[in-house]
């Protein structure tokens, strides 16, 4: 998968660089870099959980151990952005600006669904030079139920119950499918997810991700969104 490659030498997904003389090679400047990180969001009956690790890496180096990828947008919405950090920063600045504009012209805060639809058009307006960001929005919808919206880098989105994005997403998503979606299990009782169980599951899942993904680790930032507000906690992860 393309996330495994460093910015310098992607010869296509999964291809190793060949170490024999192959003729003249053009090393183009790539405007993208891959800074790693994993985000995860889970929607419950009346709550939503958005979590991300806090490692910022590039190639073999770690730039920072304290760079969380969850950004608070409104009192009921948090966005997690992972991928290229430069694009994450600009994208969140643009979303904040658009939120303020909406608030000033419509005298109300944007709902989670509206933010998701707006983000889709923002991402698609850069269809030919995309923001290299995997976004996941978690929040409460108008009825107070948990909502998770997951995006691809060019703006395709849909509402889910749970989603993992970023470098360890391919490892975490099947685990969530099994534990929250009860998929691939026969004869299991489908218990609704409580807030405590969801947070514990998220912690366990990130600990597993930090074991096997080099770009995930250092610390975990969990944001729990309920009608009473947003509650943040930080849990340490492996630092190696």
């Amino acid at each position, binding site marked *: 998968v393309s996330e495994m490659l460093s910015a310098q030498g992607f010869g296509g997904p999964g291809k190793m660089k060949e170490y024999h003389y192959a003729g003249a090679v053009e090393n183009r400047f*790539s405007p993208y870099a891959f800074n790693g990180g994993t985000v995860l969001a889970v929607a419950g009956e009346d709550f939503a959980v958005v979590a991300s690790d806090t490692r910022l890496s590039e190639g073999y180096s770690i730039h920072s151990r304290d760079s969380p990828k969850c950004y608070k947008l409104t009192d009921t919405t948090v966005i997690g952005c992972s991928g290229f950090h430069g694009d994450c920063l600009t994208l969140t600045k643009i979303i904040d*600006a*658009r939120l303020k504009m909406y608030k000033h012209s419509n005298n109300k805060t944007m709902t989670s669904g509206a933010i998701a639809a707006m983000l889709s*058009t923002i991402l698609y*307006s850069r*269809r*030919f*030079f995309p923001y290299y960001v995997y976004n996941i929005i978690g929040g409460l919808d108008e009825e107070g139920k948990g909502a998770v919206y997951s995006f691809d880098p060019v*703006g*395709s989105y849909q509402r889910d119950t749970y989603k993992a994005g970023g470098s360890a997403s391919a490892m975490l998503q099947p685990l969530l499918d099994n534990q929250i979606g009860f998929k691939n299990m026969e004869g299991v009782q489908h218990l609704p997810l409580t807030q405590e169980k969801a947070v514990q599951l998220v912690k366990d899942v990130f600990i597993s991700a930090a074991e096997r993904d080099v770009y995930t680790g250092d610390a975990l930032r969990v944001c729990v969104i309920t009608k009473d507000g947003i509650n943040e906690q930080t849990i340490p992860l492996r630092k190696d």
Partner: protein
Amino acid sequence: MALEDICCFKDKPAQQLFPFPALETDYHNLELERLKTSQTNWGDPQHIFIPPFPQATPFISRRTSRFRPPNHALTVQRPFPLSHGTTTLGFIFQGGVIAAADTRASAGGLVACPAVHKITPIHSHLVVTSSGSGADCMLWERILIREIRLYELRHKRRLSIRASAKLLSFMLHPFKGTDVCVALTLCGWEKEGGSSGLVHNFGNQSLVTDVSSSGTAGNTSAADPLSPNSGPQVIYVCSDGARLQGDIISVGSGSPYAYGVLDGGLSWGLSKEEAISLAREAVFRATHRDAYSGNNVDLFHIDAQGWIQRPREDLKEEYYRELERRSKRRREKKKRDTIESS
């Protein structure tokens, strides 16, 4: 500066060679210009940023350069894959139109989402099935819904399915040659006396010809069920510029398998249940053989009263039922053989 750009204090660009605002190089995408309603239906209703490379414009412009790099890439090389791969189908029969699709969205080798909606209703008598790149399809469907609704509000009548297909095709045209990959099938029921144009019948498949609707409103087609201008219609529009009306359309990586099943079983006189089960079977066989299609099947049935969505079915169950049926048939055959031989 960056903050200036974000707050939209921009100067008018010095040169405007093209009438399409989409091709202006624009560093901000707050789309304040676009928050006003789209005044015209032609051109691109979405403000899209084109990266400022020498070969960035799709039109061969007056600024000729003697050296044209061989890889004419409109886009920056992307380090991630986009979602692709699907099976969708639509066909007409005496009871209306059936539109069916699988629900898998794949990005490279990963299943990005196992439960996507590939069939979207546009209005009460029209649905569109999408195939190609997920984001492109989703956005272009939204744009199409918006433009059709605007037309309806401005002209107090609904756009015909043919005209919707034409509108979509023209909106996609500026992006021909770029990375945009959209293959939509408009499936719907056209009320009698659909809005515009004369139609020439070329046998079974009628190609939509560009005959303008000069005031021949008196020539509205009487309620002829086999006329291609009213009743059930299936029209395929793609970002390469193709626009085709037909009786059976199947799109995507799994379409060869779907066509095989449909061609084998389809006829005009099928009942509604038979048609639905044929469509399900076609998608099921395609998902079985095509790696990029799978998970569930969505089915819509459109008739004169509008569209009805059937509940989504998991194809895993269908696969096990199929195995059951096969082993039952084998058991019965064995029983018959032993009875005959004795």
